[in-house]
């Protein structure tokens, strides 16, 4: 039976093509593979589901066993967020032309180049920085590379961590920076390549001391690297305004569904100085004149930096990453515009404020940083039951409680990171408070 994905499997076609090549059979093409390496049995795989309907039923049936954040009321965050995804974002990124293109030249793929350059430009406006890269894999990779860039730019080897960071990010940094950059220590000293600042921090705080960390780093001759979730920048000052040299983070919030962690893409932004630009490993698309006056072309800026051009002589390495999410984030920012981003930020802080106030009033709950501003996440400490117990009880009630911090941040006690988004109505927040009150009673 000819498979719909393999057109030339039709026997007559196969035969005529074989004839054209002069080969007796397909085995002949494999003549260079020694018999000792040949697998002479069929792969041990489940029987195929060739009919599309059967496949849909099988895979769809498995996925249906999941309970999604649309099925439940979720307060999970911690690096992945269920913000609203505008329908136009999904529409654009599901277009065949974007979804199935790859690495064409600026000429046949003008649209892709323009869309990604526009993404860079929109992020540039949000961040008020002149250089933004084509997305890397995720915020982890962006952060790791930003810190390596800082080390290369300064010729120094230590990065101080000014704010609590995601333990998973720490794990990534430990691996990726090994042998090149050490992490920790004071925001001081002539070995200081940079200070890394979370804005907000992993625990959701917009720390008023951030500008002083930046100053301290600069005073020591180091750079300030600020990690941020761009979703807040409608109300939060762009890090460049208080002196950040490199800004990095994840754009998942800007129009990507959570996708069980599949919606991530990382950005790195700097000023437009050659010593910064030359240290990017990733692609940077640039606007360029063409042979036709007034026409906009696009191409790779300073391509010789990259490992594509110079293999191990390039900066770190570059490959396929997360371009489609860059295009999507561009669509998101174009839809939101300046006013949308401001209103969204205000809405996040208002909901966050409301939930903090509600929860602070419940017996058995403390909000450690209640007095500090939070964008959309904050820590909730349970004085009695464990987070696991509370979350299990909430799950029974159709609620996904906050991310359990108890193991990673033992000094916080029985704590969880609660996240609100603009999708939470006041009634949702009130419902959480009411259920928590019952659970903790």
């Amino acid at each position, binding site marked *: 039976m000819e498979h719909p994905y*393999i057109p030339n499997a039709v026997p007559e076609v196969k035969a005529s093509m074989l004839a054209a090549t002069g080969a007796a059979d397909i085995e002949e093409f494999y003549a260079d593979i020694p018999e000792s390496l040949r697998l002479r049995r069929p792969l041990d795989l489940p029987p195929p589901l060739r009919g599309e309907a059967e496949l849909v039923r099988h895979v769809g049936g498995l996925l249906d066993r999941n309970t*999604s954040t649309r099925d439940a009321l979720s307060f999970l965050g911690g690096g992945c967020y269920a913000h609203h995804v505008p329908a136009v974002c999904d529409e654009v990124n599901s277009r065949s032309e974007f979804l199935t293109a790859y690495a064409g030249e600026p000429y046949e793929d003008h649209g892709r180049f323009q869309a990604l350059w526009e993404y860079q430009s929109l992020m540039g406006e949000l961040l008020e920085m002149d250089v933004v890269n084509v997305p890397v894999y995720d915020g982890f990779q962006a952060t790791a590379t930003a810190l390596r860039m800082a080390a290369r730019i300064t010729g120094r080897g230590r990065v101080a961590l000014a704010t609590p960071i995601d333990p998973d990010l720490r794990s990534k940094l430990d691996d990726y920076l090994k042998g090149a950059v050490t992490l920790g220590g004071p925001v001081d000293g002539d070995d200081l390549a940079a200070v890394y600042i979370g804005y907000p921090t992993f625990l959701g705080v917009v720390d008023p001391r951030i500008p002083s960390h930046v100053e301290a780093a600069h005073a020591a001759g180091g750079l300030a690297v600020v990690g941020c979730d761009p979703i807040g920048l409608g109300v939060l000052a762009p890090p460049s305004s208080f002196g950040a040299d490199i800004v990095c983070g994840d754009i998942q919030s800007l129009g990507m569904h959570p996708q069980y962690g599949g919606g991530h893409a990382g950005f790195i932004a700097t000023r437009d100085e050659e010593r910064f630009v030359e240290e990017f490993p990733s692609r940077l698309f640039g606007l360029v004149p063409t042979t036709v006056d007034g026409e906009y072309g696009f191409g790779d800026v300073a391509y010789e930096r990259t490992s594509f051009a110079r293999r191990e002589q390039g900066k770190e390495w570059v490959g396929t990453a997360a371009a489609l999410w860059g295009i999507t984030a561009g669509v998101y920012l174009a839809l939101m515009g300046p006013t949308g981003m401001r209103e969204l930020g205000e809405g996040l802080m208002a909901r966050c404020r409301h939930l903090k106030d509600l929860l602070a009033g419940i017996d058995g709950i403390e909000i450690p940083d209640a007095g500090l501003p939070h964008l959309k996440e904050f820590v909730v400490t349970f004085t009695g039951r464990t987070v696991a117990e509370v979350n299990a009880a909430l799950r029974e009630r159709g609620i996904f409680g906050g991310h359990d911090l108890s193991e990673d941040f033992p000094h916080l006690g029985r704590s969880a990171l609660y996240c609100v988004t603009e999708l939470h109505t006041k009634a949702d927040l009130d419902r959480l408070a009411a259920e928590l009150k019952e659970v903790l009673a």
Partner: protein
Amino acid sequence: WDEPLLFELSQPGQRGILPPALEPGLAADAADELPAALRRERPAALPELAQNAVLRHYLRLSQENLGADLNIDIGQGTCTMKYSPKVNDRLVAGHKLAALHPRQDDETAQGVLEILWRLERMLAEISGMDRVSLQPGAGSAAIWTNVAMIRAYHESRGEGHRDQVITTIFSHPSNAACAKTAGYEVITLYPDADGYPDLDALKAAVSDRTAALLITNPEDTGIFNPRIAEFVEAVHAVGGLACYDQANANGVLGITRARDAGFDLCHFNLHKTFSTPHACGGPAAGACGVSAELVPFLPRPTVEFDGERYFLDDDRPESVGKVRPFTGVAPNLVRAYSWIASLGAEGLREVAEIAVLNNNYLMTQMLKIRGISAPYAKGRRRIEQVRYSWEELAEETGVHSEDLGHRAADYGVHYWTSHHPYVVPEPATLEPTESYSKRDLDEYVAIMNAVAEEAYADPETVRTAPHRSSVHLNKEETLDDAGAWAVTWRAYRRKNAER
């Protein structure tokens, strides 16, 4: 379309979408809590556009793009531009995956965990390896992950002194670059006269400083190295590990397996061999297969099954840790699973065989074109792709490979030359995969033939191509001039104003 930039379309006051309204009882001024220094003063200078204006802009840009769905996309050799079935896109678009949060309790994610668990077993069988990590975001990230595991492995055995990695010039640049980034000295082997990496050079290069060999096979030339097991043995003999870059696995599915040749590690690009869409350059997905010895070092968490339920195991003390957030690019993992499930063992083997048939058929036809050749291993077959050379044409006409590619864009197809350096002069790399029909291949050859003939008849037209595309030839020099390059609209405007 002659579509302007988004910024040029801005019309102040227009809105593309409205966030949810603040309900009564929510503090509209909550942002005033922010200290002044951290409060945004002036709104971001984003463009302002109505919803249909944003949509129209991006739809037009999409139409100014090719894509595997739209053209005979065999010109991006090494990229395995196969058909990405639409049904798989639709399976991952529903909220049961799209709205799944990676920090959910495993109990609420049994469906996706089962798929990841099953996919790992499938890829283990296809590679012959013991376990497979699905966490890397794409091929280069998978190479990095393998290098990180190699480093951790040697360190765990007190052999941290091993500081050299050997690779070949026809392996993807990321092999060299990842090794370098991880702190290794990189030794690069060049092809011998037959196009194979030089075994003698390898034997000369290995030593107790050797951490690993990172090698592709077939390499970007499409030539399968029959002595690959000897390469692996030579590295093993000095205590090094052998790591197989299987980005180009499309021609060998069910034919030969990494572990059977003795490799300790390998990786697949799921967006290549396993059909997930290329998405303008990601999100993609990578998979790292390892032998039992390397299993402790796999990224965490792994997906485990206790006979009743699936769960994420984060308690892996020797793990290299996280190489990306959470458990990988889940939608692409589900797509890859669906693709394998729709084909089965027999189907995968047919994929490989037809990909190889298509490639050798294409080579037969391409080599009839004036001015082209397929360097190395003359008269021998190729596996899934061929690196061609237009050297003869370039010498005779002054038209370069790149020019021919640009001209092909005028006919609605294109090709990619090759990664640098151009070891093969005037290169062009074609990989037809199993997805294209004989008719498609014939059409592509006809276009290439027409372009080559044109290069002889009217070289100027080819050199100044494209002529029928959305845009004309770039003035490239701007892109390398720090005073002129423009990575963003704000930089462009500033530099323009300064002029």
